[in-house]
């Protein structure tokens, strides 16, 4: 379903991590156009990919990496403390043993065959984060989320912003946020995973109806 890669099993998954860094570059740099200082071309591994970093990776049936995310303890240097502290103007970014920071929530949609699979893979990635947190006594995850992603986060985890939306010029805003992780959210996520077909069918319905006709 998903793999959780920690310091303990990192060696066994060396190839998977390698592929994950390449996949991240494809999406984050090539598709989203981010400018990340200090990384190699084709390989998105930055200063927050450390020995302590935990990865959740989702693999396709053929072993290809289709989605991944990473978590760092907030007791050490992390993105909110090092780069975006001034974004947190509503409340200070939380620092504690039971708060970790999640970043690089990335899925490669070009590898997915249909919307149901796409939905399920995102569910799996989210489930991986929740499962790791519950197993390791982590009660909150902090993030810097893209404005368009914020509602997906708050749909699953009880979330509140750490700061006001920040944008450059006319562009999308970024919102620092913190989410609670508990058993209830795991249940909700499992339900969404189980009902993926029904949920996607429901919101795809008007689309199928309208595309029934064709132009010549």
């Amino acid at each position, binding site marked *: 379903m998903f793999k959780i890669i920690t310091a303990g099993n990192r060696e066994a998954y060396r190839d998977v991590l390698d592929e994950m860094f390449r996949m991240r570059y494809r999406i984050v740099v090539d598709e989203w156009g981010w400018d990340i200082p200090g990384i190699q071309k084709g390989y998105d591994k930055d200063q927050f990919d450390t020995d302590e970093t935990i990865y959740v990776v989702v693999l396709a049936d053929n072993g290809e990496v289709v989605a991944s995310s990473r978590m760092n303890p907030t007791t050490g240097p992390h993105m909110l403390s090092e780069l975006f502290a*001034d974004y947190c*103007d509503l409340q200070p970014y939380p620092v504690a043993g039971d708060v970790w920071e999640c970043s690089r929530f990335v899925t490669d949609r070009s590898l997915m065959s249909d919307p149901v699979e796409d939905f399920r893979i995102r569910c799996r990635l989210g489930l991986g984060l929740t499962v790791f947190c519950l197993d390791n006594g982590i009660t909150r995850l902090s993030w810097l989320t893209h404005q368009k992603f914020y509602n997906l986060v708050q749909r699953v985890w009880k979330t509140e912003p750490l*700061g*006001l*939306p920040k944008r450059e010029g*006319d562009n999308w*805003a970024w919102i620092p946020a913190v989410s609670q992780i508990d058993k209830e959210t795991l249940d909700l996520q499992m339900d969404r995973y189980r009902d993926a077909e029904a949920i996607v069918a429901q*919101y795809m319905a*008007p689309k199928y109806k309208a595309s029934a006709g064709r132009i010549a």
Partner: protein
Amino acid sequence: MRDYNGSKVLEAIRAVQVTETANETISELSRFIEQYGLERIFLGQLVNPANVPIKDILYVSDWPEELKEHRRSQMAILHDPIAICALRSKRPFSWAEAREHASRAGRMVVDMVHDYGITDGIMFPMHALHSVSGGVSLGGGNKLSLSQTQIAELEIVCQTVYYHLENMLGPFPYQKVAELTHRETQCVQFAAAGKSNWEIAQILGIQEDTVKKTLRRASDKMQTVNRAHLVATAIAKSQIFP
């Protein structure tokens, strides 16, 4: 921002998150926006009312009933420059800003609300991943002068309200904002200029069959049934120039 105190914003967000009915949620928002000189809320998904019945979309407003009815009967949303801008804009914008770029019909739609004492306002577009866009439009009878910080405060509270309502009242039908590829846009653009498939093929230096397939793909994406429908929809969705 060093001395900034965001406690009133956090308080408002927490209050919204525990509301259990749409009325409660809107009352919380009303209370919050009062301090910015704003009085009226118009919140909803931006879909073509000709395609989707109003009961199937997220739509909440405390505008006067008569005004709502008037707008509905005129299909005002189709000409409303505020709604049209919101589909494309990645940031909040004032009604005046949208009005500046509007057609004559569009300006009439903006001005329609003046008779009801709503003379100035600001729109917060709502865009989620893989889902239909919407917006929260706040208006009032006063001339607005909001600082960037105040706009950001309103934005995060509006966003919380919007998605809280979506969770509470949803799920709503899914309508993806189609995005055409470069080649598809070119073909549709020439189709809009009255060119035949053969002519488009000559202009672009590709096979006629490729043009036909590209237009069909574009048509599927835009969920349209014939050439005229495709061109009209592509313009309406700002995929090509009119």
